[in-house]
């Protein structure tokens, strides 16, 4: 009997297909941004959309894709560890502005949790939906832990975290321009506190100080959120 291979089986039985699809999509994203020179053409967002479209068109399960694509995420932990290097390069700057950095990031975290509280109440979300959104500005690794601990839906938290990151990555430059955030330290802190590592990717492009401050803010805001989120969870 003739056996027809579906696209899904092909992808499922490959250890590289998911990685190749992701790399090609990311390449297309970089190409598009070079061509258009627009903030809206974010390579990460474009590649996510392209991969999703590819999976839907060829009826490939997410599980088949992620079986090989997961090797890309494997590098995320060492890459996060590597954020220590740009941070170390800016150590003097960090020490000099320690108070300013801690206060601004704390203000950012409180404004994040506070505005999520107000908006969740306004939309009449359930407690579970509210705590699902609470960690949306912090890095996925810490955010998943916070969501789980507070009884949120971890999958949706991850989705909200990524949407926040991609959105933050796209808008950080225009927001700094429109609201006249001038100091590179402030731009970096704003990017990292509001949109974690994906926003930091943009901050890295903006400059070494922005990138370092942003990666510093990921850690600081993540840790402050761990403490504050449990307090805010009890408020609604």
């Amino acid at each position, binding site marked *: 009997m003739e056996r027809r291979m579906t696209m899904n089986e092909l992808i499922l039985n490959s250890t590289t297909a998911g990685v190749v699809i*992701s790399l090609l999509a990311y390449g297309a994203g970089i190409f598009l941004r070079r061509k258009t020179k627009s903030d809206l053409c974010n390579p990460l967002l474009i590649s996510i959309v392209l991969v999703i479209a590819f999976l839907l068109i060829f009826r490939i399960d997410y599980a088949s894709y992620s079986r090989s694509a997961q090797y890309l995420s494997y590098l995320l932990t060492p890459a996060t560890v590597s954020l220590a290097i740009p941070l170390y390069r800016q150590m003097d700057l960090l020490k000099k502005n320690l108070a*300013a950095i801690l206060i601004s990031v704390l203000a950012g975290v409180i404004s994040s949790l506070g505005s999520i509280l107000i908006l969740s109440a306004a939309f009449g979300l359930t407690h579970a939906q509210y705590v699902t*959104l609470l960690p949306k500005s912090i890095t996925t690794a810490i955010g998943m832990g916070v969501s789980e601990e507070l009884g949120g839906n971890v999958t949706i938290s991850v989705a909200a975290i*990524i949407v926040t990151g991609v959105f933050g990555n796209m808008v950080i430059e225009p927001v700094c321009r429109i609201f006249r955030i001038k100091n590179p330290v402030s731009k970096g802190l704003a990017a990292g506190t*509001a949109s974690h590592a994906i926003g930091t990717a943009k901050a890295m492009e903006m400059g*070494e100080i922005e990138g370092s401050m942003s990666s510093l803010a990921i850690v600081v805001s993540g840790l402050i959120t761990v403490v504050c989120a449990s307090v805010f969870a009890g408020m609604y």
Partner: protein
Amino acid sequence: MSRGDLVVKYFRQFVIIMFVTCIGEVLHYLLPLPIPASIYGLAVMLVLLMTRAVKLENVGRAADLLVELMPLMFIPAGVGLVASWTDLKCILVPVLVITPAVTVIVMIVTGKTSDWLLSRTESGRETAEVPDGKAYDDE
């Protein structure tokens, strides 16, 4: 520098980064705090650099490469939106309003607070004039 030297150099740098990552994972396993392994690893790496147990030129290039490739590593998680679509559908509108609104609010609050605090100090005004650019210590 010959090609072979460069390969050895990158290899050594990757080994150090993976080793520190592994230490982070062990700490995550041993300590009962809600802190992910990568953050422990980041802290350990920072301590090693500050105590000069590891020199910047012994990890810098590999670390920069990993950091620059970071957006790629988020693609699988982003595509995961497809898998969690059913749960997301019922709170789609609130999420689509709350997520961008809060992101912009946090940027403005953090950035403006920091700008205001830094404008009151000498060092803050200095950093506003530092030019961008990445410097390699090993070149």
